[in-house]
Structures are given as structure tokens and as C-alpha cells.
């Protein structure tokens, strides 16, 4: 009798203490695909994590794991985090989509946030940024500045997010320079500095004087710098250390406001599964400083485009646009709907080469 009372008392006390602790701190977990020092994608997600810590101070505790491979191992990492008491877990790469859904099913009380994917459930939100808006600006600058009329593009994986970027950049380069050609190299990795550098060199050796990248490291920037007259754009992060040349501008992913908002919702219990896709207008996509290496008039046009996109007056995918095979896609003045964009698996007319299936 005494023993059971004691046990019950202890259990109660422990339970209370646990509850009190849980109420004190909200635990947010982050899974990164690359190292936080990649200077690009994962770096920006980690900056946003730090912003969450700063915003909520003692009320929040964050944990992260970096360089988690996309695939089965990601499930292990997420499960571990959920078991470790995380209340919300941000999984920050496309390849975590199915693992996130699987793990989320096992932990209905934990909220999950998956970046750049398209599968949701009751406790899985998706969020992404309209990087293609920034790509439009890059395409414009690239088309204006290329002298060889060859633009190189380092693609990671042939997924809609990357293909959207290629299309958007191409459309706007073509608009200002009808002779422009795009060469795309698929490297099948988000992060491999040596391979990214080799790809950039191959493009440059074949005459490209603009290199766009959809991979996470700054290695292509270094390769362009060595080559001399080649311009590049910072990807995911500002990569300002390569300004003013070769990096003439950049797309910066600004996740902090979103992360703060979502963690806040978990705290006050208003979190629900949503699909967020924000761009320049809300500041989720920022255009890094356009350097003086860009002629003043081109810079002005680029800034005007940023303004127009931000104000919602201009959509980068505005008709008339045809698909690569020549079939009509968007009529004059028509803008692409989000569904088509989210699942984009075709090139627009004019791009040579095929998307690996």
C-alpha cells in the first residue's frame, strides 16, 4: 500500500514535472541535406533556425541534424528527433518527402513541415518558395550580358522545382536575346563541390559565359572566378564573397519569418496543415544586390522586374508560351496555374536537350 502510494506519487510528480517542462519549451527539429557550412541551401535553413531561437529565446529549444542522406536514413533521423521530444520538425529537402509522410504517420502529435514537396497529411505541411521568380530576373540579366550567347545551367535532379527554374530563366533570357542557348548539366547531387566545379568548368570550356546553378555549394562560383569573364548568381544564399564578379546577383531564401510563424503556431496551438508557396512579394525569396558588373540599364530593368513580380503585376510564366514539342501551353496573356507549375515536367519551346526521365 505504502509502496504503491509512493510510486503513484512519484509518477504524478514526474508527470507534472514533465508537463511543466513541455509547456516551458517548444522543441523544434531541423533535418538538413547538406552541411550547415555549405554556404547555400542548408546554410540558409540553419540561419532561419537561429532566427527562431533568437525570436523565442528561452521558450524554444532547437535541434538539428546535417548531411542527412535522402532516403531510408532520413526516416531514422526524423524518428530519432520525434522520439527525442520534438514538437515540430522541418525536413528541408525534396527527397525527404516520402520519409516525412511515413514518419508523420507514426507520430500524429508531432507537426512536420516539408520543404519543396507536394505530399501533405493532417500533421504534415508543405512549404516552398517561388524561386522561379528570382530565376526570371537572372535570365534577364544573363540574356543581356552573355556575349557568347551560351548560358550554362547546373541542374541537380530533374524534379519540378529545378525544371521550373530552367524554364523561367530561359524564357526571360530568350525574350531579351533571341540567339541565346542553354546547356544543362545534371549532376545528380545537391552537394558535391568537386563535381559542381567540374560541371562549371565543362560548361565554361564549351563557351558558356554565364553559369546558373541549382546546387548548393559555392564551387561553381570559384570555377567561374578562375575562368575570368564568366558571371554567376548566388544560389539559395547570397554568396556575396564572390561579388562583384563573378557573382552579379543572387536568389536568397529567407525562411526565418515562416519558421518563426509556424513555431509560434505550435506554441499557441493553432498549427494546422497548410501548403505555403511564397515568393518575392512576402520576402521569402529575396534578390541579392545586383553588382556594378551589370550595366546600369540592365540593372534598372532587372530591379523593375523584381518590383513588378513583387507587386503581383507580372507573372514569370505569362503566355504566349509553347512546350518544347511545339504544342501550345499558355495563350497570350494567360498565366500558369500553380498546379501545373508545381508538377512541371516539361521544357518550354526553344530549350534543346531532354529532361532525364
Amino acid at each position, binding site marked *: 500500500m505504502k509502496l504503491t502510494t509512493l510510486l503513484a506519487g512519484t509518477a504524478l510528480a514526474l508527470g507534472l514535472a514533465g508537463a511543466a517542462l513541455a509547456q516551458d519549451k517548444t522543441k523544434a527539429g531541423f533535418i538538413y541535406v547538406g552541411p550547415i*557550412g555549405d554556404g547555400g541551401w542548408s546554410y540558409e535553413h540553419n540561419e532561419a533556425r537561429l532566427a527562431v531561437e533568437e525570436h523565442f529565446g528561452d521558450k524554444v529549444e532547437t535541434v538539428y541534424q546535417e548531411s542527412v542522406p535522402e532516403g531510408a536514413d532520413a526516416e531514422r533521423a526524423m524518428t530519432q528527433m520525434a522520439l527525442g521530444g520534438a514538437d515540430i520538425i522541418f525536413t528541408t529537402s525534396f527527397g525527404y518527402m516520402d520519409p516525412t509522410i511515413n514518419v508523420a504517420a507514426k507520430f500524429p502529435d508531432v507537426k512536420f513541415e516539408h520543404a519543396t514537396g507536394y505530399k501533405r497529411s493532417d500533421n504534415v505541411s508543405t512549404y516552398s518558395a517561388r524561386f522561379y521568380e528570382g530565376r526570371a530576373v537572372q535570365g534577364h540579366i544573363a540574356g543581356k550580358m552573355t556575349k557568347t550567347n551560351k548560358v550554362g545551367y547546373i541542374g541537380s535532379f530533374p524534379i519540378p522545382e529545378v525544371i521550373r527554374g530552367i524554364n523561367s530563366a530561359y524564357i526571360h533570357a530568350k525574350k531579351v536575346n533571341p540567339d541565346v542557348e542553354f546547356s544543362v*548539366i545534371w549532376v545528380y547531387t545537391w552537394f558535391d563541390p*568537386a563535381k559542381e*566545379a*567540374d560541371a562549371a568548368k565543362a560548361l565554361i570550356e564549351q563557351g558558356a559565359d554565364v553559369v546558373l546553378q541549382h546546387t548548393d555549394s559555392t564551387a561553381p562560383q570559384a570555377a567561374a572566378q578562375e575562368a575570368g569573364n564568366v558571371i554567376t548568381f548566388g544560389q539559395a544564399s547570397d554568396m556575396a564573397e564572390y561579388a562583384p564578379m563573378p557573382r552579379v546577383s543572387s536568389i536568397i531564401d529567407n525562411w526565418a519569418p515562416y519558421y518563426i510563424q509556424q513555431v509560434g503556431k505550435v506554441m499557441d496551438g493553432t498549427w494546422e496543415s497548410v501548403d505555403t508557396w511564397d515568393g518575392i512579394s512576402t520576402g521569402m525569396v529575396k534578390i541579392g544586390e545586383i553588382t556594378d558588373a551589370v550595366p546600369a540599364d540592365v540593372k534598372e530593368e532587372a530591379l523593375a522586374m523584381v518590383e513588378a513580380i513583387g507587386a503581383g503585376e507580372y507573372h514569370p510564366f505569362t503566355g504566349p508560351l509553347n512546350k518544347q514539342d511545339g504544342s501550345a501551353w499558355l495563350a497570350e496573356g494567360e498565366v500558369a496555374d500553380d498546379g501545373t507549375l508545381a508538377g512541371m515536367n516539361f521544357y518550354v519551346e526553344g530549350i534543346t*536537350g*531532354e529532361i532525364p526521365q
Partner: protein
Amino acid sequence: MNLDAINWILLLASLMVASTPILLAAIGELVVERAGVLNLGVEGMMITGAICGFAISIETQSAALGFIAAAIAGAAISMLFGLLTQYLLSNQVATGLALTLFGLGLSALLGQGYIGIKGVEVARLHVPLLSDIPVIGPILFRHDLMVYISIAIIAGVWAVLKFTRAGLILRAVGENHDAAHALGYKVVRIRLMAIAFGGACAGLGGAYLSLVRVPQWTEGMTAGAGWIALALVVFASWKPWRVLIGAYLFGGLTVLQLNLQAAGLKVPVEYLSMLPYLITILVLVIMSSGRGRAALNAPAELGRSFHASS
């Protein structure tokens, strides 16, 4: 497709640059394995060399000092492996894997302050007269010094193994450590020296990545090059010149597939990406089909621990 778009001269030149890191790491590992030690920590030693070389070159503004520091760092971390496997007789496979993990973590820690910093310029050597020869000049004679040093190391290893007493002793230790011990050779000491050499070479290979090929520091930047170097040693059937051929073949195919993609070759990218590995398998099959000659060539004591009293 437009094959004319590919500048074959530049392609062959960048082939040599792309191959140098794995070439250096592989020739070091070859010596280690010829002494009968299997060190799977190449990746860890490479990345340690990469960050140490980068850091020192930034601090001193000298690429040469960077490379020297990288070699020392690689050798130093390999001594950890040497101590564990040669004196404490730990399992070589497990210790090697641990060394890789340790190296990756350590380098990330050391590299905290060096992310996003531009590397120092590594001068390219224009060999007088020779570099002006059309076609061959730009391909062979306009590289940085390390490319030539790596080839010199291959030649040196070949000559030492084949013609010198030291090479003979090293091979004896790798083929039959008991016999070598009976003859009065210090098996453990010789193996430690081989491990240190392997570590230094791996460190140089890593530094070549961070100082020349990429050139910058990023965490995890070796991205598996160490494992390719390990495979290369088997591919070369423990013969120095074959390491050179293997490395250039592998590096060449990697560069070629990127170039073919950029030129718009109408072949699915997956096949192109597979190419380096496919050819590696193919060559391995062809080589080992010669009645297991390649297998016979493996050092007999590879991976076995030696203890004098046993």
C-alpha cells in the same frame, strides 16, 4: 548533338586536374596495402588534409606551405590508425572506418572559420618551350606543380618498390610478416612508415581539392573521393603505373560525361553518369579473368595484424 562544341584539348587538360586528388590518395594507399595494411580511412585523411592545407595556405598566403601542412596533417592523423592497429592490434577495417568518420567530424570543426573564404592563387607552371607545343603543350605542360609531383610520386613508388632494397623489405612485410620478422626486419616500424606515407599522400590529395580543383573549403567536400581511391588500388592490382591509368580513366570519364551533357548528347544522362563506374567494373572483370592473376597479386598479409610473440 554537337561534338565540335567540346574543346578536346581543354577536356584532356582538365582530366589531369580532375584525376590528381584520387591519384595521390590511391598511390599512398597502394604503399600501405603493399605493406600488408588495409587502411579504409583514406576519406578521413583526405578531408583532414583538405582543411589543414586550406587553413595554413590562408594564414601564410602560401600554397606550398599549405600542401606541406596537408601532408603533415594527413600523416599525423594516420598515425592514430597506426597506433591503434599496430600496437593495440585493433581490427583494421573497423579502425579505418572510424578514422574516416573522425576525419570528417574533425575537419568540419577545424573548418568553422574558413567557410566562404577565397583560396590563395596556385600558380600554373608554364614549362618553357614544351608548353608552346601545339595541342600537347596545353594538355600536358600548363598545369600547377602538384600535377607533376603526383606523377613523380608514382614514378618514385614504382622505382622504390621494384629496384631498391627498401622496396623489397616493404613487399616482404606485406607478403609474409612472420618471415620478414624472422629475418630481423621491424615489421611494425616498417608498417607505421608506410601508413604515414599513405596519410601524407591522402592529405596532399585532399589539399589539391581544396586548393586547386574546387578551390575553397566546404564541409564534406571530398564527397567520396577517398572510396574511389581505395577501389582504384584494387583496380590497379597494386601496381603503381596502373594507378595512374586508372585515375586518369576515372577522372577522364567523369569530365567527359559532363562535357557530353553540356554538348547535348542525346543519350540519357543516367547512362553517362554510370559510365565511370561501368568501365571500372568492366576493366576489373577483364583483368581478373586472366586466371585470377589480379587476385594473386594482392599482398598476402593484407589486413592481418602482426604481433611478434604470436
